[in-house]
């Protein structure tokens, strides 16, 4: 019971935030609504027993990435966007595309509803012992070690790229 209520509550916040993101014309409002979405997603992760993911979601997404966005918005002092009609295709093709996409996924989910069951509220039953965080760590540093290292290299490259791109070239 409690689970449903909480889920519906945060889901409502998520969708509201997302819609607000679309409707708002000023980027900073969109950004803040996106932050809201992310935080409530973190709450949903907690419901799904992924407390570590939830925490990281808040710290990394809401706390770092979105701050970066806000920071850039402030830096470029971006005003409200103008409603230019640059591309008709965006509506002519994209609109039906999105509708079709949404419809397809919904249909799929709802029709395979019987086969897929429920989610377990709260923390998962640990198979290998240790709580969620320990297990995730074990996975991350044992089974997924190589991808992990690769991503670290990716990050490194990204940092360098960002520095190179953003640095003003005096010459």
């Amino acid at each position, binding site marked *: 019971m409690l689970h449903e209520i909480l889920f519906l509550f945060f889901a409502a916040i998520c969708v509201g935030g997302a819609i607000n993101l679309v409707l708002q014309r000023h980027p900073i409002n969109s950004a803040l609504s996106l932050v809201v979405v992310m935080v409530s997603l973190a709450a949903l992760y907690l419901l799904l027993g992924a407390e570590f993911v939830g925490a990281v979601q808040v710290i990394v997404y809401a706390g770092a990435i979105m701050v970066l966005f806000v920071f850039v918005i402030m830096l470029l002092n971006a005003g409200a966007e103008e409603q230019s009609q640059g*591309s008709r*295709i965006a509506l*002519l*093709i994209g609109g039906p595309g999105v509708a*079709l996409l949404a419809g*397809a996924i919904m249909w*799929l989910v709802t029709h395979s509803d019987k086969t897929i069951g429920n989610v377990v509220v709260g923390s998962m039953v640990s198979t290998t012992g240790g709580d969620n965080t320990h297990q995730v760590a074990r996975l991350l540093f044992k089974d997924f070690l190589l991808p992990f290292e690769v991503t670290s290299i990716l990050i490194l490259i990204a940092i360098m790229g960002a520095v190179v791109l953003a640095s003003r070239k005096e010459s």
Partner: protein
Amino acid sequence: MTEDLRLWLIPLLPLIGAAVNGLFGRRFKNRVVSAVALLFTAASFAKAVQAVLLAPHIGTGLPYQRMLPFNWLDAGTLHVPFGFYLDQLSSIMVLVVTGVGFLIHIYAVGYMAHEGGYYRFFAYLNLFMFFMLTLVLANNYLLMFVGWEGVGLASYLLIGFYFNKDSAANAGKKAFIVNRIGDFAFLLGMFLVIQKFGSLNFTAIFGLLKDVPAEAGWGLLTIIALLFLFGATGKSAQIPLYVWLPDAMEGPTPVSALIHAATMVTAGIYMIARSSAIFSRAPHALEVVAIIGGLTAIFAATMGLAQNDIKRVLAYSTVSQLGYMVMACGVAAYAAGIFHLMTHAFFKALLFLGAGSVIHAVGGEQDMRHMGGLRTKIPVTFWVMTIATFTIAGVPPLAGFFSKDEILWQTWNNSPALWVVGFITAGLTSFYMFRLWFMTFFGELRLKSHGHDSAHGHGSDHSDGVHESPWIMLAPLVVLAVLSIFGGLVGIPEALGGHNEIHHYLEPAITAPLAETRAGMAMEAAEHAGSTELAFAGLSVAVAALGFLMAWFFYYKRPELPQKVTAKINGLYLLVLNKYYVDEGYDRLLVKPLLWVSRHVLWLVVDQKLIDGAVNGAGGASQAVGGQLRRMQSGNLRSYAAWVAAGAAAVVAFMIWRGVHQ
């Protein structure tokens, strides 16, 4: 004592040397370069000795075989492993290659001291060692072919070492192309082998052949054998593909000694001996082999008569000696062939190095007409050359005598006609060798003002008179001299009270010809008939002596005579001098037409019209299509996004639809 001999170390070590010198040599001092080269070659030699000594006592003894954990080639059912194979045959080869190679490395240190591209030279030399050892130690034809091609490459690089000299570059190209022709045949032969045996592994093939009778007619085996033979003619400079070897003398003398006398050119003989199982079952092929060998021997010998360039004389004598070996294989006396191969490696290397020392002494002069009287000037060189000359001329008890005599004897038992050829060749050999000897070391010094257009970059720095070479060059000569004196002792035939050890040593590695073939019967005959053999030995000594006397008469007693004689038989002389116009003939028959076809057909028609047309057409078509498609590229990010979204939707929808309808 470990189970695993780590044979792969033997080729690997020179490769490392080559890599080090090739990559970093430019920055090294010459001293370092030579240290690296020598070190790795010596290590490889030591390793080879150890392997040869240990192999018989390991596991099942010889043949010793080990695969590396990874394959060289995996194609469907065909798996060619990276395997190394050591039996009596390859033992001898590997010892000769590493040993002589090492000596020649030492020599080269002294000889190339003043050359540019010092590090390049040694990198190539080590590279050659690597490939040669791969060739010798391979346990299957493909890996052998790898080495085969590799030595071709190395010899190309080394012949063209003075790449800024046109003649050198051309000679390199010539050698490379001519070899390709032979290699092509070898390759075809390999394909047939795969098609017949489904494997390239020696042991596998020989195992399958064990109880196959000899082919009466021209069966698949015969064809394979002939293709292999043709490959061998390329590498071992036999008719019709011998033309590259004389020109190969453009390379530095150590190269000529190592590659074009001692080791690489013997690859063909090695290959034939290695394939003895196949050849012995293809009598017709064997006959062809024998005939080609004999013809080459005598042809080359006659050409050698008229040459004046000291190295060219040696080159032709090399060709003819190789002819001997091939002939030996042709009469199924593989052991004799290998035996001669070994001794030849010693004394021919010695001859070349000696010649190098002479050239070095007279400041790059290679024309014997401008030498002479060097006997006193460079005593050590003189003495070693003397030994070598007597050895090759077949004077007992020097090495050459035994090996050559063995071959002649086996030939006689097989076909007297060939024996005659070989016999004459022996005479010619001793004649032109002594001619060389007299012209170079006796009479008075006919030296021009030398140091000009020297084949080596170091003419100027000792244009002051003739001088003996440094000891680093002489030491290897002495060692080789000793070898060519006593090298023959391993093969003294029974008839002369020896045991012909090498023959018995090689027996297990070489499948003796089947009894029913002629060669087989000859073998039977050869076993007993000591007295006749003795007689033949006497004959060959005699002919050698005859050659000596003629040379003495013409070039020492009456030096002016040759001109008269040549003037009298001018046509024949010119014919011989110009090597029977074989090169010109090839030029007319093959090269020119080929060029014409490639220019007027392949280039102007096929390439320009067809291929370019197709390419341009494709380009134009795509351009046209793109011109239409670019309309989609509005350059607006959101439009692209729309397309992507629509596409994604389409994919998802399609997948769902598929999922539903099945």
